């Protein structure tokens, strides 16, 4: 398995395993479609392109087909030992949480609730509860608190949900009896019935999605007119997922996100001002930085941060960069010139300082501090 949790690389060429009886499998339409496209010539990358599936769904589908042994990739073995019951138990004790999660996740859908909790079908409620508590201590999402592997976190959530469902159901006498009956019914041998994998859509899937994305985009424009930004975002997000090659959609989305971020940045800025007025410069700087990240085009945040960087942290070089950016964004604001001038003074570049203060005064002739600083700079000069 590679670092992405996948069993294949883009240049691999999957082949259909002819010994495998496909009809005994339970495949989703996406998996069926994928299977129907495999011809022993197309590479994984090709398949991804023609399938038009989102990345995650595509690799999940392909993984499933490889695990089920329906597909082979030459030189690669079937990735998982074909044990029917609780594969996670075969994980050595020393396995990391990540390994345990990966292993259990693969079998999650296949395991019965009893197998999942490691119980016999005759288990008492006390045993069920105990098993649930033990599993919980191992697979509760808090066990990966603030862990940065998104995939592990997502899978842990699903495993925990499944364990939880198993517990609730088995603790309920009536539901447990129904479940037991269903299990028995499944265990009976069933007559094989040859069903071909779902036929691939005959239409041109690529054109279909392009058109659909276009419609969604038009819908988004409507929503923007109506000032329903959340709705517009929904539309754009789908549009850019189904037609990822059209930059227009992602651009529109980032524009929209920006609008919302601008509002948020204002709040952070406000909170920053409060902190600053109370002398908590570090906190204020953090909030200004947040605001800056959210709304990178507002010169105000750069200026605020520059002021603290210069006056409190004593870092004129960093402050200089910030105010220069602020001036670039909004040349009509006098404040950055004031700070930049002060920075130059600090660096004993009186001429440059004078130039900055004069620029500032040109914009705001009544700026007292600016005038004062200009006088000081001229004196030094």
């Amino acid at each position, binding site marked *: 398995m590679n670092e992405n949790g996948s069993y294949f690389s883009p240049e691999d060429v999957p082949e259909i395993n002819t010994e495998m009886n496909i009809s005994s499998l339970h495949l989703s339409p996406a998996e069926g479609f994928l299977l129907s496209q495999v011809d022993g010539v197309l590479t994984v990358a090709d398949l991804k392109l023609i399938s038009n599936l989102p990345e995650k769904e595509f690799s999940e589908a392909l993984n499933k087909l490889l695990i089920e042994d329906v597909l082979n990739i030459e030189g690669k073995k079937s990735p998982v030992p074909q044990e029917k019951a609780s594969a996670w138990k075969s994980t050595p004790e020393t396995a990391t949480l990540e390994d345990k999660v990966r292993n259990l996740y693969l079998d999650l859908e296949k395991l019965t609730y009893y197998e999942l909790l490691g119980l016999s079908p005759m288990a008492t409620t006390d045993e069920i509860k105990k098993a649930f508590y033990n599993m919980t201590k191992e697979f509760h999402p808090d066990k990966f608190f603030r862990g940065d592997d998104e995939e592990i976190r997502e899978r842990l959530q699903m495993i925990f949900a499944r364990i939880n469902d198993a517990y609730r159901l088995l603790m309920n006498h009536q539901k447990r009896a129904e479940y037991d009956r269903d299990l028995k019914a499944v265990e009976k041998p069933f007559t094989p019935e040859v069903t071909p994998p779902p036929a691939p859509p005959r239409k041109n899937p690529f054109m279909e999605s392009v058109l659909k994305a276009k419609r969604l985009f038009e*819908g988004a424009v409507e929503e923007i007119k109506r000032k329903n930004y959340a709705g517009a975002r*929904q539309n754009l997000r*789908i549009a850019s997922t189904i037609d990822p090659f059209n930059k227009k959609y992602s651009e529109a989305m980032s524009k929209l996100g920006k609008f919302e971020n601008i509002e948020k940045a204002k709040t952070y800025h406000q909170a920053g001002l409060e902190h600053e007025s109370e002398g908590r410069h570090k906190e204020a700087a953090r909030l200004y930085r947040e605001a800056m990240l959210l709304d990178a085009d507002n010169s105000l945040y750069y200026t605020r941060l520059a002021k603290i960087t210069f006056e409190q942290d004593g870092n004129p070089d960093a402050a200089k960069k910030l105010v220069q950016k602020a001036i670039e964004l909004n040349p009509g604001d006098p404040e950055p010139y004031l700070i930049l001038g002060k920075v130059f003074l600090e660096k004993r570049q009186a001429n440059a300082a004078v130039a900055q203060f004069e620029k500032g005064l040109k914009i705001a002739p009544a700026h007292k501090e600016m005038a004062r600083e200009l006088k000081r700079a001229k004196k030094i000069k």
Partner: protein
Amino acid sequence: MGKVIGIDLGTTNSCVAVVESGNAKVVPNKGGYRTTPSIVAIGEDGRRLIGHLAKRQLITNPQNTIYASKRLIGRRWDSSEVKRAKAAYPFDLVKSSGDGIRVKIQNKELSLPEISAMILQEMRHVAEEHLGEEVNQAVITVPAYFNDGQRQATKDAGVIAGLDVLRIINEPTAAALAYGYGKGLTQTIAIYDLGGGTFDISVVDIAEGVFEVKSTSGDTYLGGDDFDDRLIDHMAEEFLKKEGVDLRRDRMALQRLKDAAEKAKIELSGAPKTSVNLPFIASDDSGPKHLELTITREELEGMTNDLVDRTFEICDCAMEDVGLTKDDIEQVILVGGQTRMPLVQKRVQGFFGKAPRKGVHPDEVVSIGAAIQGEMLLQKDSDMILLDVTPMSLGIATFGGFFTKLIERNTTIPVRRSHIFTTAADKQTSVKIHVLQGESDRATENELLGEFILSGIPPAKRGEPEIEVSFDIDSDGIVSVSARDKATGAEQSITVTASSGLSEDEIQWMVDSSKNYEVELKSEEEFKKLKHKFGSVLKRIEKAVEEKDPDEEVTERIESLTLKGRMASDYADVETLREIVPQMAELLKEVQG
């Protein structure tokens, strides 16, 4: 890694705790007090006072002193609590954009999260002074019965205060954690939490180091303040009888009454009677007037007995929900200042048939539990786990103004649930998903958390498109929703933000707005649901007919529809029911006028 603090952000008092060398303990503030009043005052010069100092100048500076802000946080401008607060609080409340609330003070408008942030900041300082190091991480507690909006607003407050909020945890759950931590218990306990502004009851199973909340219930409008209000009313009525002046009309006098009521209430917990002396509380042509009154514990108990009754109704609900009885409860733990009242203790003992556990400090146990939870999260090898539940059912509004639950209350969190929905009209290309929290069958009677539109559904006959809506409740009890059009397979998600921008009128969409936005549940359950809807609308119509006595033409229409509906119910005819239920709803409105 720095230390993590646990903050009990209370309605009247707040408390902070920290775990040091394996022991959780409360950190006292500079004045040596172990709790700090949740009061913020702002002086004319913009200077900020928080805690005891703010409380002391409350009488002289009532319009610039904010207390009980927790009662307002995360609420909508048109909620009953806010309406009440507008009348009762000496400080000014104004409506902000999006139907939020702002407190207007010294010509500044502050949002509720900002005010809570000031208190959190203060608690953080208290801890930092004690520890001699900077603190960035915190676990903050909320009443178990807080909804999504209130939780989010509290989390925002933490962020504004510069804290990394590791978790929002329920107050009774925190208390259970503090009680059972490291004891290796196997026990079922009940936490009876009657605080300054809210009441919560939680039943918790403890075994093998797992704390499993079985059920929780509560009332965010019931707390110690309500006990105070009874006393205030009593004193004001007595004064009105004697002097002919209603003190409740004068903000300054009311503030003094409030102070006196709290003091008297506390004194009556220790003594059989107390006297209240408020000189120069009012004046008229005949000169100054003084309030002098003796109140006995018996009188106070008579005034507040029904409030205690209400808590037991809620306790019954919480236990019934999970099939438990009072006999299953092995230990009762009292939390919150109001449980110091002898009446509460006596009646809790009577209700559960066992004496509440002694030795748990009602004001401190919650913050201690929060600090412990913080440690548990940061320690990778901790073998304790907390399983909490969602206090309210969660779902979406469906065709006809009904509420379809996707996650039942008392479901263990974190949780994710999905259902398939479909369109309610032909060629409908978008659906508006209204996310609600509550227990009523009627969408309008539940709390609206937020809404979003899923568009781009290919035009089709109604009932054909399949839209998968998934709900997530994270460990903080905060909700996010994703919707997926199964035809495109594309998925997208949003975090539900408290959409407080909606007035009553706007919520009316649920009943009569254009069909083009509504969704319908599509599953085997649909028939069951419709049948139920039909039954409940029928009941309401019958009641309305009795009251309004409509004319013959209308009665005839009702009869014919009822007949059709009954037949459809008997023969599981979903199509017909789909048509009839909304027609019935229309008729109901017509009858009600």
